[in-house]
């Protein structure tokens, strides 16, 4: 009898924890999948950001949940047409990525997000903010490259920034294409650590390269 009780308790406990972990992986997977379709509607991106943040807050020690919450917020800033709102959303993304940074220091993917946040701030008023944010954008991008030289995303961000910089300023397809091609090469070799680790950007790089032909 005692054994049975023990068995039930152990079973409950074990399935409980398994269920918890399964639930985490499953929720993360379905939400990550939803990111790909969310670009059509910015509101979906915000809903997803909130979902990731709820997971992150409940789990407390999963950096990836904070990472994706920040990724959704920063992507949301790029789609926000009212530029006066961007700084506050970008600050929210910073708050989230800083929490990821505490759990997973010196991470290349986290540095990428920080670079993206700096570009959101700059885009609010590029004329006035260029000086202030361009150094930040580049230093995080370079940190990301150093932290993981196999990560294709920092090069993708760099190539994308170059492509949208006018030729007169040393940008344009001419300078962007080799960087994007190198990023694509890295994407082809890139192996994610798990199903829920960052693995986005390849199709975008292919699109950018095709536009430069």
């Amino acid at each position, binding site marked *: *009898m005692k054994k*049975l009780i023990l068995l039930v308790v152990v079973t409950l406990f074990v399935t409980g924890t398994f269920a918890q972990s399964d639930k985490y992986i499953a929720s993360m997977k379905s939400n990550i999948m939803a990111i790909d379709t969310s670009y059509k509607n910015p*509101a979906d991106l915000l809903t997803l950001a909130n979902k990731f943040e*709820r997971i992150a807050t409940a789990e407390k020690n999963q950096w990836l949940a904070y990472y994706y919450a920040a990724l959704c917020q920063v992507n949301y800033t790029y789609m926000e047409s009212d530029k006066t709102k961007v700084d506050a*959303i970008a600050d929210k993304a910073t708050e989230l990525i800083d929490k990821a940074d505490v759990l997973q220091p010196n991470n290349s993917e986290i540095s990428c997000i920080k670079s993206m946040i700096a570009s959101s701030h700059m885009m609010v008023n590029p004329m*006035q903010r260029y000086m202030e944010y361009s150094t930040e954008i580049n230093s995080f991008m370079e940190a990301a490259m150093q932290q993981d030289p196999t990560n294709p995303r920092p090069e993708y961000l760099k190539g994308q920034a170059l492509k949208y910089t006018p030729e007169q300023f*040393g940008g344009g397809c001419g300078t962007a294409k080799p960087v994007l091609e190198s990023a694509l090469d890295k994407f082809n070799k890139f192996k994610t650590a798990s199903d829920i680790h960052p693995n986005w950007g390849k199709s975008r790089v292919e699109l950018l390269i095709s536009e430069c032909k």
Partner: protein
Amino acid sequence: MKRGLILLFLILSLTAKAQVRIAGKIMDNRGKPVNGVSITLNGTYDGATTDSLGNFSFLTTEKGKIILQTSIIGYRPFEQELTIGSNPITVNITMKELVTELKAVVISAGSFVASDKNKGAVLTALDIVTTPSANGDVTSAFKTLPGTQQVGESEGLFVRGGSATESKIYMDGNLVNNFFYSSTPGIATRGRFNPFLFKGTIFSTGGYSALYGQALSSALILESKDLPEKTEADLAISVIGVGGGIQHLAKDKKSSWGISYNYTNLWLGFAINKQKQDFFQIPVYHQGDANFRIKTKTGGFIKYYGYISANKTGFKNNDIDSVILKNAFAIENLNTYQNINWRENVGMGWKLTTGISYSTNKDDITNELQDANNQKQIITNPSFYSFKNFTLNNRAQYAQIRFVAEKKLNGLNVIRFGSDYFYSKEKSTYTLYDGSQFTESVTDNLESVFAEADVFITNDLAAKVGGRVEHSQIVDKWNIAPRLSVAYKFADNSQASFAYGLFYQNPERKYLPTVASLDYSRAAHYILQYQKISSQRTFRLEAFYKKYSDLYKTATSLTGREVAFNNNGFGHATGLEFFFRDKKTFRNVDYWISYSYLDTKRDFLNYPQSITPSFAANHTAAFVIKKFVLPWKTGFNLSYNFATGRPYYHFAYDHVQSKYVIGDAGKTISYNSMSFSVNYLPNLGKKNPKAFAVWVLGINNVLGQNQVFNYNYNNSGSRKEAVTPPSKRFIFIGCFLSFGIDRTQDAINNNL
């Protein structure tokens, strides 16, 4: 027992699977739905995000007491405890908006903000240097904004019917005396300071803050830069001179120092641009400055700025009374200015700022009546000729200590208060043709205490309430100046503001000393404004009424000097102003339009009656347009300034009535001036160039339109002569090089 346990286990797992729906609506305190709010059951994955109608709905398997949290940017987070049973729950929540700088209304009545950061900014520092009519002069750029007059015969800002002496200029809170180079008759001088020294400028055309005083019309508040972005050196070569400087930023980015020197010699400039006056001393200026800035541990700053300048100029004009004789005017000036400012965050939301400034000014002026062979002529009959030969030596010292404490309360609410002590000693020696000397000295100790509160009732309604108390030794009376502005933001983000204030000012130094017992002159401002600012467009409309009382009237003293005599002067000014700036409609094109209507009359100084002063035009307008053409690496800037004619008068002394009467009067032709400048950036886009160059070509009054600012009369009033600019056009060519930092990036980004 075994079965019982299994049953219990089954029941438990079944109930755990039973889901309960939680739904509701989230509104703000005005009853409007809030979109995008995140709703979370604390510690779970369960929750939702509100839709555009503020509705949310989700299922949860949680049971019992649990905390529901809601959060969204810009609102105060909200928590509520729920007890989840088996029935659906409806929760309706009201969220309170946070008062944030981003959303809050801006208290803007009467002021134009020029800054790279401030959201209410109308111009940036770079706008000042790329506005062609401004020629890189800080105050001239403000002449393209509404409220200012296109006065070209003398320096200073003439704001809303006020004279130039009614506008005061402050650097980091301290008054800057002699902001402009010393006056020369009929030729406007420039401001002394480089526009790149400042990170922000507030140009108040009325109703300004209680932190400032002693200006009946306007305050120009300049805030110097904190740390430079990088270490850099620069060099400038132009038709007016050469200059160079270095700014050094410490490796830890906590401190910096800088020095610069400029040598201006207008020989080449005058060779290219023929001057009306006959210059026997080409204007030569030496100007040096030094600064250091230290960032303190608490994020405060210690900033020092020191300036020294020596310059001289001399020119001849035909003497208006005699036609065959000439008036030779010469001035030598030495000016120093030091300002040290310490701003510290002392915790608990308190910020303390202390500033000390000290400046000196020395002017040595000589005026000679000369014949055709440049020989000095002394004529004593008629007697007024004898006063054409004189020397005037002015010596002035100014010191100021200022202290401001600021406490941040909840939200954006702030209280500030402080005190100001200003000392001035001005001495002048006037030497007549016969060697007789008159020395006069005026000392003033001006103390003031001020307090001000920013009150944000909601994001949409805010007020600035303040007051200032002053005591000047010269007047020996206290004055109390209340200030108030209120701003309200509408649903479409446009806003309306109202400002009211009383402003006091001492008599001008040149009408002192006097034996008369005087009071302060006084102005009351009433301003109503409507404004709409989006990131690419600014629109504003402002109406004002200004009432002057106790203005100074002058009389002739026993020594023949014009001195302040009583406070019987008065006046008024009413106007309507319009400003529109647009960077959106045309790609890569930025333009703005200003228009001011002014109706003003006053009786002051030696005016025989209440008249429209000669510095006031009824209609003033400016148009500025800038376009940067990337493939050519070139920026094109054009400005057009217009004003209707200004009145001019000759006051004749009527010996029968023993007073001044209007002997002659008229109106000048309207003022038109088109200026053009081109900036060429050859190194643009080059990777890591060693130096960056900006070439500038500027032409003032491109079309060579006739400009008449005023008329000078001879002694009897029988003959008048137009006061016109020294040259029809002015062509400027220059090259600015910077090493170590890409300043051109500023120029380009500003034009993108």
